[in-house]
């Protein structure tokens, strides 16, 4: 498959060319090698899962993508160009949004404000305009509020709009986090265990949201998840990591029958 070529998924969706590519990534922390020489790509419109045992280096990989860690060796290519070293906020402004394994919401703010922060990269009014709440600042505020409300509706969190996030239960927090990421209208969305700590019903909801985002906005999604049911059902292609190495890469079908993957991670064929 060439970089620019897409492919068609089992359920008939058209996937585009390579959006993001990790080339020979190695990441070391002092003596610990969290990732060693991993390469893979994420294609436009794809739902790409990253799985592997605990401590395999999955979250670290996401952190590299979003610029929080700088790889010891290796390159990140984005939209066909090598990404120079960047601050995380610059990466975010290039259209990369994410959620976190240990929820990283702004606990002191309301749900609405949290989701509004997702739109910060789209708002540019100056400080004076904001101070007098007039002109650009005010228009922007209203326009973006509308966008945010759409996301809020979409994720069905209308009724907690004005609740401070600190008081919410875990599952809802995860949803708010997703809302914040979605509000940014990213071209690629990184989800780190979005369904941890949810029951089946909630996972179903969450799956639904993920699929819809992917469907409606064509957002590319990279997903870390431990629930094999979810991974197998949702993802188009799966990377499997173990101890910082890549041990498998392919469609869910291929991965689930890969003996290395079974040994290292699944335990039993799923």
């Amino acid at each position, binding site marked *: 498959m060439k970089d620019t070529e897409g492919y068609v998924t089992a359920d008939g969706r058209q996937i585009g060319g390579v959006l993001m590519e990790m080339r020979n990534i190695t990441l070391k*922390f002092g003596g*610990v090698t969290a990732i060693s020489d991993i390469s893979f790509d994420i294609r436009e419109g794809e739902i790409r899962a990253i799985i592997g*045992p605990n401590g395999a280096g999955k979250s670290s990989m996401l952190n590299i993508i979003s610029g929080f860690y700088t790889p010891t060796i290796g390159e990140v290519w984005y939209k066909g160009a090598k990404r120079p070293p960047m601050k995380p906020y610059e990466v975010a402004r290039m259209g990369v949004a994410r959620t976190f394994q*240990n929820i990283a919401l702004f606990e002191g703010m309301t749900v609405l404000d949290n989701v509004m922060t997702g739109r910060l990269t789209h708002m540019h009014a100056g400080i004076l305009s904001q101070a007098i709440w007039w002109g650009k600042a005010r228009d922007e505020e209203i326009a973006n509020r509308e966008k945010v409300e759409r996301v809020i509706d979409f994720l069905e969190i209308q009724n907690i709009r004005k609740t401070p996030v600190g008081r919410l239960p875990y599952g809802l927090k995860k949803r708010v986090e997703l809302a914040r990421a979605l509000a940014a209208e990213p071209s690629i969305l990184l989800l780190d*265990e979005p369904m941890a700590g949810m029951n*089946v019903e909630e*996972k179903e909801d969450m799956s639904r949201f993920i699929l819809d985002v992917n469907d409606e906005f064509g957002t590319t999604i990279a997903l870390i998840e431990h629930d094999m049911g979810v991974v197998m059902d949702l993802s188009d292609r799966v990377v499997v990591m173990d101890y910082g190495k890549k041990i498998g890469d392919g469609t869910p079908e291929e991965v689930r029958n890969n003996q290395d993957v079974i040994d290292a991670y699944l335990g039993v064929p799923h």
Partner: protein
Amino acid sequence: MLDAARTDEALLEVNNIEVIYNHVILVLKGVSLGVRKGGITALLGGNGAGKTTTLKAISNLLHSERGEVTKGSILYKGERVQDLDPAALVKRGVIQVMEGRHCFSHLTVEENLLTGAYTRRDGKGAVEADLEMVYTYFPRLKERRKSQSGYTSGGEQQMTAIGRALMSRPETVLLDEPSMGLAPQLVEQIFEIVKSVNENEGVSFLLAEQNTNVALRYAHQGYILENGRVVMEGSAADLRENPDVKEFYLGMSDEGRKSFRDVRSYRRRKRWLA
């Protein structure tokens, strides 16, 4: 010993408790449940149902969150324990593994485990032996024993937290979402560990879980919490067969498991009460 340890003797009784946070937010609206000696009791329910709150009410960790038990009583071995401080409760053998890991991030993994033995007075040797036991349960921890736990992965922290609780040689363990964030084979493994600790050491468990499937496979007894109320209780086997539980908690419909991709319409939750 096996089932011999499991008796009908009530170890922990929660009677109709009400919990309020911050003086205004009513979270538990009369929850009653019982944990039998030597049993594994599962506490199920959706996000925000109040599972964590219930566990914290029992272990008396609510105070530091500005929560309060305003009504009802909590008895451990027939004795009222509401007014004890958490440390006293640990001395009595009740320990909680908190949701979301809560490791001491600047301590190494091994130091974390050793703090679990803080209340113990049975000598270094015994503690060492238990440390080895935890390491055989979780070999990954042995590899990382000298790392500061703040720098270990999510799953490793979860193992540390559970291992730390086991280090106190508890009688009763309150486990809050032990499977969260763990790789599938580890989830099974942890529940196996729970089972074997339960069977071999006679430790009773009260576990709050989202992973209903696994939880009901390992538990003897189950409660389902919705919106701060117990809406269903019974033996694990009964609950597994209940059609509502099947649909909402196990993701099974009549035709068997459905693909997540196929759940086309959002399911509206059916509430037993509300």
